[in-house]
């Protein structure tokens, strides 16, 4: 088992400058799939593009791979423009959502495909393929055919096939969406482990925010062909710059409030009959006294007030639903005509079940609240 | 959308019902026939009959050989009640196979014995000699001499230029075959056939098709019946005829009543049979073709009566009896020499 990648394996960085890709829909309207998209990905970095379907993330990937020709803009690899390099010369293998394993070739031949194309001598191919099989834990399966193996195994073959050619950059197009949950989690870790080990520059596309959060060095949140926000997982999670991002990453609850007053270090926000004091840096955008704002509250920022506990930032609500999820319990609480999600880690000692329609008292940590201007 | 569909389908059903009724109604008061006359001739003949008798004739046009085979296959349940036209040899075969019935009638009184069956099964409506028919323009274009004898036809210069029908299907072609046998004797005849075959690129099913092909220039020389050729000439086609020097064969076009034909047609069929030998029928034969019927009617200009032609001694009974054997032999000779 190799513990690091071989020396002859060079990775590259990726730079996209103002890439635009449009198409005409059925009615003839011009749709911007990718709109003035610029991004820099450093060597060895794991970058994820996330967003809802139709946001353009897959199109960006395909432009990078050379499957789509951008209307304008440049794609540079290692500082050099690759716009005019055809797809088959870019050396950026992609792991497809459908795995795209060649059904008429054995696992061995599938993995060896890229090497054969590059006219690598037979004995080296054998060596490399066997090493790959070890790496992805598929030793002994080389003579099977794709339809004979499971989805998870197919996924690993697709991965092996991409890695064996020692790519400078590797691309992933929602590779885990066809797997069941447990397998997804396992494979996610596998991919990350390998990426760490080999240090390949990776661009990963997914609509699953959990995947993005757990695997990436940097996350790019996309909306309608544009970048909403780029940042590390922590930044994106804790400091979303827009309601959209906050809504997309993590199960943020939104509660309306009014700016009562602006002070030096914090802002007073009126929610129903309570005033919440929130640190100023958690506000985004230009806000003034009297503005209506949306407060983004993560479920874990809310706690249940134990009897006898005092907390100025408290409010009461009615329990509508309880979801038992093993390590955590999730509640839907009605407050101010909004349903709020509350997540509590399981406390073995403290009784945490509530009857339906029971009124409970909750407290919220103001440092975990983001303020967004309401449009 | 639903309404459109329903209207559409109702209309369809109505159209369909109309068609159905029409087809069913037309099938009473009729005679069903096989005919080996040319289709336009047959139509004219039957139209005339329909006019005079009020009976509708449903017919299928088949070459002589085809007709005999079909009648034979249908013998347990004959589809037609009469076979009108076709080379006499075929009618003899039909009789020998028990497919026809005797119909003694005064209508055939005027015919010479050799032009009718002694047991009253079939009788002749006209006789026609075989000739060479050639396209004058094509002949000149290819700089070929006019063939004057059967022997001439085997000359290598005529390769690809001659056409006749398949004796298995066509009574005309079988007539040609028996003529050749009668002239050369059986063994030499098949040597002749082998040689002739080299000059023939294909054999048609219908006996008169080669003649028509020659008329329009699709082929240079055809062997067929004189009256067909004369019709083309009178229509203005660049066709000419030549009677072979050694003598030629001839057909007796005949009519037979079919045994056990459709029950409700027997009387009607008899009417048609008797009518076939009469003057008004003869007039139609004359007007439509250049055939020379056995009834005395004014002939078409250019028609050639059989008496004016050098014919060979023809034994139709023998020809009928030996047909299977000779045709089989012909097939073998022709196909094996094709592989050369």
């Amino acid at each position, binding site marked *: 088992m190799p513990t690091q990648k071989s020396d002859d394996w060079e990775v590259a960085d990726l730079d996209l400058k103002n890439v635009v890709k449009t198409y005409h829909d059925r009615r003839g309207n011009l749709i911007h799939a990718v709109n003035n998209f610029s991004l820099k990905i450093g060597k060895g970095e794991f970058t994820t593009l996330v967003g809802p379907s139709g946001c353009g993330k897959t199109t960006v990937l395909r432009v990078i791979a050379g499957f789509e020709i951008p209307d304008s803009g440049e794609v540079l690899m290692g500082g050099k423009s690759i716009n005019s390099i055809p797809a088959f010369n870019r050396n950026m293998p992609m792991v497809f959502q459908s795995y795209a394993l060649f059904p008429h070739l054995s696992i061995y031949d599938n993995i060896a495909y890229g090497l054969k*194309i590059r006219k690598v001598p037979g004995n080296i191919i054998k060596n490399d393929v066997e090493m790959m099989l070890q790496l992805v834990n598929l030793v002994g399966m080389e003579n099977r055919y794709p339809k004979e193996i499971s989805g998870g195994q197919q996924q690993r073959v697709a991965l092996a096939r991409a890695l064996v050619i020692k790519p400078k950059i590797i691309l992933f197009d929602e590779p885990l969406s066809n797997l069941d949950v447990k397998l997804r989690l396992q494979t996610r870790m596998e991919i990350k482990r390998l990426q760490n080990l080999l240090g390949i520059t990776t661009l990963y596309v997914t609509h699953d925010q959990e995947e993005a959060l757990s695997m990436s060095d940097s996350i790019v949140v996309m909306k309608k062909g544009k970048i909403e926000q780029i940042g590390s997982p922590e930044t994106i999670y804790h400091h979303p710059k827009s309601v959209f991002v906050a809504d997309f990453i993590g199960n943020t609850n939104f509660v309306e409030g009014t700016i009562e007053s602006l002070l030096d270090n914090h802002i007073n926000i009126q929610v129903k009959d309570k005033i919440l004091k929130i640190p100023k840096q958690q506000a985004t955008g230009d806000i003034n006294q009297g503005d209506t704002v949306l407060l983004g509250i993560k479920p874990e920022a809310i706690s249940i007030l134990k009897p006898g506990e005092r907390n100025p930032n408290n409010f009461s609500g009615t329990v509508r639903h309880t979801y038992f999820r093993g390590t955590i319990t999730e509640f839907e609480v009605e407050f101010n005509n909004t349903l709020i999600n509350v997540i509590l880690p399981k406390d073995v000692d403290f009784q945490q079940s509530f009857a339906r329609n029971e009124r409970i008292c909750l407290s919220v940590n103001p440092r975990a609240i983001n303020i967004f201007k309401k449009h | 959308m639903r309404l459109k569909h329903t209207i559409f389908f109702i209309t369809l059903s109505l159209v369909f019902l109309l068609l159905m009724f029409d*087809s069913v109604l037309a099938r009473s008061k009729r005679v069903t026939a096989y005919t080996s006359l040319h289709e336009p001739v047959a139509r004219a003949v039957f139209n005339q009959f329909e006019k005079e008798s009020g009976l509708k004739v449903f017919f299928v046009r088949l070459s002589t050989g085809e007709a005999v*085979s079909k009648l034979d296959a249908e013998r347990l349940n004959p*589809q037609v009640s009469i076979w009108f036209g076709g080379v006499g040899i075929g009618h003899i075969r039909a009789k020998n196979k028990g497919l026809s019935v005797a119909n003694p009638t005064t209508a055939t009184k005027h015919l010479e014995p050799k032009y009718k069956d002694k047991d009253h099964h079939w009788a002749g409506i006209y006789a026609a000699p075989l000739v060479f028919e050639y396209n004058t323009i094509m002949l000149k274009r290819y700089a070929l001499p006019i063939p004057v004898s059967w022997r001439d036809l085997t000359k290598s210069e005529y390769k690809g230029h001659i056409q006749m029908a398949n004796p298995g299907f066509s009574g005309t072609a079988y007539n040609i075959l028996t003529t050749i046998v009668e002239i050369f004797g059986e063994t030499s005849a098949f040597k002749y056939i082998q040689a002739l075959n080299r000059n023939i690129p294909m054999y048609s099913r219908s006996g008169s098709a080669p003649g028509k092909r020659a008329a329009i220039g699709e082929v240079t020389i055809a062997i067929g019946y004189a009256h067909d050729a004369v019709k083309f000439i009178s229509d203005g086609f660049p066709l000419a005829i030549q009677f072979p020097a050694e003598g030629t064969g001839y057909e007796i076009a005949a009519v037979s009543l079919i045994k056990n034909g459709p029950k409700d047609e027997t009387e009607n069929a008899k009417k048609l049979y008797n009518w076939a030998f009469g003057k008004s029928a003869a007039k139609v034969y004359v007007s439509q073709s250049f055939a020379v019927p056995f009834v005395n009617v004014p002939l078409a200009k250019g028609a050639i009566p059989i008496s004016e032609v050098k014919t060979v001694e023809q034994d139709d009974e023998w020809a009928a009896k030996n047909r299977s054997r000779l045709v089989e032999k012909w097939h073998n000779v022709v196909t094996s020499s*094709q592989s050369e």
Partner: protein
Amino acid sequence: MTTLSFSNYFKNQKITLKRLLNEPLQLILVLSIIFCLGLFVLYPLYSTIKVSLMPNGHFDLIVYKTILNQQRFKIAISNSILLGIVVATLGTIIAFLFAYTLTRIQFPGKHFFKGMVILPIISPPFIFALSAVLLLGRNGLLTQQLLGIENFNIYGFKGLVIVQTLSMFPIGFLILSGILQAIDPDLETCAMNLGAKRWKTFTTVTFPLALPGLWASWLLIFVQSLTDFGNPLILGGDFPVLSVQTYLEFVGMGNLPRGAGLAVLLLVPTVSLFILQRYILRKKSFITVTGKSTRRSIVSVSQLIHVLLIFFSILISAIISIFYISIFAGSFIKLWGINWTLTFSHYIYAFDVGLQTIKDTVLLATIATPITVIFGMVIAFLVVRKSFPGKNLMAIAAVLMFSIPGTAVGFGYMISFNQEPLLLTGTMYILLACYVFRYVPIGIESGMAALSQVSKDIGESSTNLGASSAITFRSITLPLITPSFISAATFTFVKCMTGLSAVIFLVSASWKHMTTLILAQTENMLLGQAYAMSVVLTLIILISFAVFKNFMTLGQTSVFGGISHD
């Protein structure tokens, strides 16, 4: 199979039998279907084989000995095989190029080309032979007038190759375009992604995956060439082929046993190749329908090939158009090559003399079509959704007719239904039966394809709620499969209108068919009339096709690939 599984098998059959007995309607249905199939599919087959093996009343192999020894039959057999191989090969190549162009290359007006390709399938089976004479015969427009080529012999092997290839490659096209479209676009993209250039991608991915389709196409065209009747009859010349020989032996020579023997000989390759293609090759197919319509946006061929392929498609389409246009033109010309005056006389003839025939043809096709399709759908429903003993046998027997050449069917029907108590010859019923049982596979295939898309759960939930099978079928299944029903009906109608090789044995003075009439006219050199009738026939078909096109699912064209003969 061990003894244990044998007894299990019979136990299962007993259970299914018991269940069957509980639903009386279904039981009656199954029994009558089995009876009909036995009578109209197996019995004629049996009669034909019997006649060939018992020419003189007792078992004798003389018929086959003669056939396999006599020169003229051996030549016919080898000719047929040679012709089949050449046509299948050429046809598959053309079909593949055409299919590749239409599925992988972007250019405007694709619908026109698709229409062009479908045209030969819905036309009378010998239409190309007819126009070949017009264009390339002695007085042919191209040979004589335009190019001044003398003595180009359209008759025989050359002419047949041209004509059969043009009329049969569309079958291959349907299969291959289906397969090429079904290939996951990601696979080709992926190959490129891994470094394979365009040609490499083609040879390592596209071509291997298309290979089962290529085989299927080759086999189907081969079978169609073998069983082709109309073209060799018109253009055969001195190139005898097996299909025509059967007719010749029977009609020309009156030799029933030998005709039967030849029909049986023709049966053997067609049925076995059919089984080969269907049951063996299908298993090797690698196409899995992913259901996801992924984009195929990458250019997969170089500029040069792009242009060449488009040019090729235009060329082929142009050739096909010329053939059709010449027939249309020829129908208005007094005498092609001799007398160029325009005339309507041929059409007058068609609607005067030919009117009864036109009516008969349309009437019978119209009656037969709904019967055939309903029958087929019922069988499909029973086979897909129900179990009962003998189910598989029924499915096989029903589909068997697909593979039996029309000549054998016509021959078999003619000799089987010729006497009491089954006296059908000369009536419309024999033609109807022939249509129904020859074309019922269309309805079955369509039905099965449709039912496989309609989830079994839907039917099961209906039954679960208390509805009997009949009600489920009528109110749930039937509306969902209506589009397939209409596709099947359209194709069945087309087949009934253009059938020749079986029909020629079964027409009579009372009931005629346009195709046999056209053939007779061609034989008798009444070419103008033949062209006019052909135009009328094609128009009727095109109109019905156009009308129903709106109602049917175009994906059903793959069904057509299975019906290889006229």
